[in-house]
């Protein structure tokens, strides 16, 4: 089934969220797609607790507060969020509309696409050792999609954050788990840490101090992980390695959509913030134009101007009457309902 909307926003970071609002003011509805499991982009993923000081009128606001407020501001316009998925492919229809397909096989149809993807999608950071590609997804798992695969297996989990600790605790029920971290202190939530320490104490899991030095394929479909702790090295033979080194950002499939790029950025004009392909826009950190500053507030401005041009695509026969939010009765009805 194909879901229809006016505009598809790619990226639920601050600029994507504000785009929903600006488009909503012009009666344009949105679906929003993001690879993370929650809206907010870098603000929510990288620095939810860190203060931002250059949002106009907000003397100081954290990444998470800004996200929450932008979500609340966009809510009256009923955006539909599609999280945990990445846009894989876009196709133009003869009627000048777009079909967008996501990694979850969702298909959406819209008149415009707004790319507000920041520095790209967040993907797991991989181990920087060469020639591991053939093990990726087979013996080295950066995400657990199918727990039953790991049943009764010998598993090495690496990391000290929430993902590492949560999976250690969870998989200890079905597998032989060793958790390895470079120190015996953990960034993860205190609850998960004490749970893990309890499991270690009860010998339900092993804890190992160290880091990955190298990885080799060994006989019987196993993996040899060479572990080092200071100068000492040991070999560990396991069925699966689950490294959790946080996330990094990658442009991903956007690079293949035929847009004019400037390295990893999308070139736009500064009147409409449209890309080299008509009815595809790029706003926020992902775009490039002379004088560009990668600030959230620049992205907000870009969203407002982009919305003006989207209106022309969405309502070709209508005149867009410029109105202030302070005086428009229509808007008050919508925003206060």
């Amino acid at each position, binding site marked *: 089934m194909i879901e229809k909307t006016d505009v598809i926003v790619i990226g639920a970071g601050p600029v994507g969220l504000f785009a929903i609002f600006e488009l909503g003011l012009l009666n344009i509805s949105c679906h929003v797609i993001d690879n993370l499991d929650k809206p907010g982009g*870098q603000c929510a993923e*990288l*620095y939810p607790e*860190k203060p931002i000081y250059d949002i106009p009128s907000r003397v100081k606001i954290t990444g998470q507060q800004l996200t929450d407020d932008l979500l609340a501001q966009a809510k009256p316009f009923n955006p539909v969020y599609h999280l945990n998925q990445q846009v894989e492919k876009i196709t133009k229809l003869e009627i000048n509309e777009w079909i967008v397909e996501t990694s979850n096989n969702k298909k959406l149809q819209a008149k415009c696409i707004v790319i507000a993807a920041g*520095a790209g999608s967040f993907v797991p*950071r991989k*181990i*920087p050792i060469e020639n591991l590609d053939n093990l990726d997804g087979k013996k080295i798992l950066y995400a657990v999609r199918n727990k039953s695969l790991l049943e009764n297996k010998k598993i090495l989990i690496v*990391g*000290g*954050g929430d993902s590492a600790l949560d999976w250690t605790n969870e998989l200890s029920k079905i597998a032989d788990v060793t958790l390895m*971290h*470079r*120190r015996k*202190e*953990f*960034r993860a939530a205190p609850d998960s840490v004490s749970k893990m320490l309890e499991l270690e104490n009860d010998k339900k899991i092993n804890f190992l101090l160290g*880091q*990955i030095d190298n990885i080799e394929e060994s006989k019987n479909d196993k993996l040899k992980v060479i572990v080092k702790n200071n100068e000492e090295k040991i070999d560990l033979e396991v069925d699966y390695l689950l490294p959790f*080194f*946080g996330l*990094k*950002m990658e442009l991903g499939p956007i690079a293949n959509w035929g847009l004019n790029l400037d390295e990893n950025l999308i070139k736009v004009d500064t009147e409409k913030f449209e890309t080299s392909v008509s009815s595809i826009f790029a706003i926020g950190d992902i775009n490039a134009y002379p004088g560009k500053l*990668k600030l959230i507030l620049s992205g907000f401005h870009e969203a407002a101007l982009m919305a003006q041009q989207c209106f022309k695509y969405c309502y070709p026969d209508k005149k867009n009457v410029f109105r202030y939010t302070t005086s428009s009765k229509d808007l008050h009805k919508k925003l206060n309902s």
Partner: protein
Amino acid sequence: MKIKVTDREGNKHELEGDTNSTLMEVLRDANLDIEAACGGCCACATCHVYIKDEWLDKISGKDDDEESMLDQAFDVKHSSRLSCQISLSEDLDGIELELAPE
């Protein structure tokens, strides 16, 4: 002030630093391959460097935030630092460092 950097391929670079910048900013602005995804607020570990031993004592120590972000870095050593957390000063003139793997 000078900053001496060895990149991941082993090439050496001599950069001009200034005392209003962090080490990460100088590396980034010299177009060395350093991601610095979060822009310098100690919220990622993509500006990871190894500082040459004799310079370690001259730099202010790691705080908890930096130590905990280093958990996301690969091959952390005693000389590991996040370059965004190092403010340059005249007594760091000539500092030598190496980019960590990414």
